[in-house]
């Protein structure tokens, strides 16, 4: 999948898309916080008609921000999922049986992040564009769901990185740390080849270990 795009473009596009994803998320989360919790209290001692006009204008402007950020989050999230898909679906044969379950776990966290994210974005758009001002309880629910979505994304990323570290550990015998890069006066470290188990299948056979050995 990585070889289908020029390398320079690949390494330029995806960091930008990740940045856009975070900025769009930030605008929605922080804007929601102020729109739902600060603005109503800041204008509550004004005349009713002044409150309505101020809140109406803020709601109109923030609605367009929510809409654009929702589109941006969905598009950049889809691109990130496409890029990370092999890491969530590729199993390796190896001596560490934990890895297959860990890969599945990363996929579940990512799926949760996607599902909850889509739901909360739909809720945010619905609340922002409804004809009447929605009740405060729904707005608080949307804010909490936004925080949960970010947590699910952080968890998925952590498990994905753990898988990468595990794979390095198979070569370097080091589960948590990356190998030290030698200086110019040192010779590169020699790497011990991994010792495959006796039941390791050949490359032409199935990629899954044979059950029952």
């Amino acid at each position, binding site marked *: 999948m990585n070889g289908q795009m020029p390398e320079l473009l690949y*390494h330029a596009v*995806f*960091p930008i898309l*990740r*940045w856009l994803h*975070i*900025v769009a*998320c*930030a*605008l*929605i*989360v*922080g*804007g*929601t*916080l*102020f*729109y739902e919790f*600060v*603005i109503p*209290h*800041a*204008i509550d001692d*004004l005349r009713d008609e*002044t409150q309505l*006009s*101020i*809140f109406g*204008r*803020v709601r109109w*402007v*923030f609605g367009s*921000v929510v809409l654009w950020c929702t589109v941006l989050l969905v598009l950049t999230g889809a691109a990130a999922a496409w890029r990370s898909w092999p890491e969530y679906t590729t199993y*390796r044969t190896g001596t560490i049986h934990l890895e297959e379950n860990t890969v599945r776990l990363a996929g579940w966290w990512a799926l949760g992040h996607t599902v909850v994210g889509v739901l909360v974005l739909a809720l945010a758009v619905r609340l922002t564009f409804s004809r009447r001002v929605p009740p405060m309880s729904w707005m608080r629910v949307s804010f909490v769901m936004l*925080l949960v979505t*970010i*947590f699910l994304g*952080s*968890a998925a*990323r*952590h498990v994905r*990185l*753990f898988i*990468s*570290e595990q*794979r*390095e550990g*198979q*070569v*370097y015998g080091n589960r948590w*740390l*990356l*190998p*030290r*890069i030698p200086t110019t006066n040192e010779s590169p470290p020699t*790497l011990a080849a*991994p010792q495959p188990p006796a039941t390791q299948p050949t*490359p032409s056979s199935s990629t899954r270990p044979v059950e029952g050995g």
Partner: protein
Amino acid sequence: MPFLIVFFRWLHVITACVAIGSVFFVRLLLPVGLRVADDSTRHAAFLRCRRALKLVIHPAILLFLISGIFNSWRAWDAYKTIPTVAHPLWGTHVLLAAIIFAIALYVLAGAEPPAGHRNWMLVTLVLLVATVAVASTLKYEREKAMTAAAAPARP
């Protein structure tokens, strides 16, 4: 330990989201909403929102420092393997953050905003977005290095 790693990353991210969104809202959206009010009403409403922004930004600075220190400690060994990339990116990220903290503390100090506060808040917003870009690039480079290091192990 895994819970702490995920927790502090989540804390750092949501703090950034809240800070960026709040500054964006107060600097760009709130003036549009307050345009319909008369001068005294607009100023009073703005000061209340500014007070709320102070209550958001001051704890955010503390949370940034705590979560940022933990995340840097956690990722330090990985950064040491890519020093030519990690050093400038991490340094720029921390330097921009320090500048943002200084500007935010200055603009939000006192009961009344200082002269030029609108321009300072716009600068803060731009620097916040730039800081996220630097952090995203650093994270990408770190993951790229880990993927490259694991590549010889793949069949």
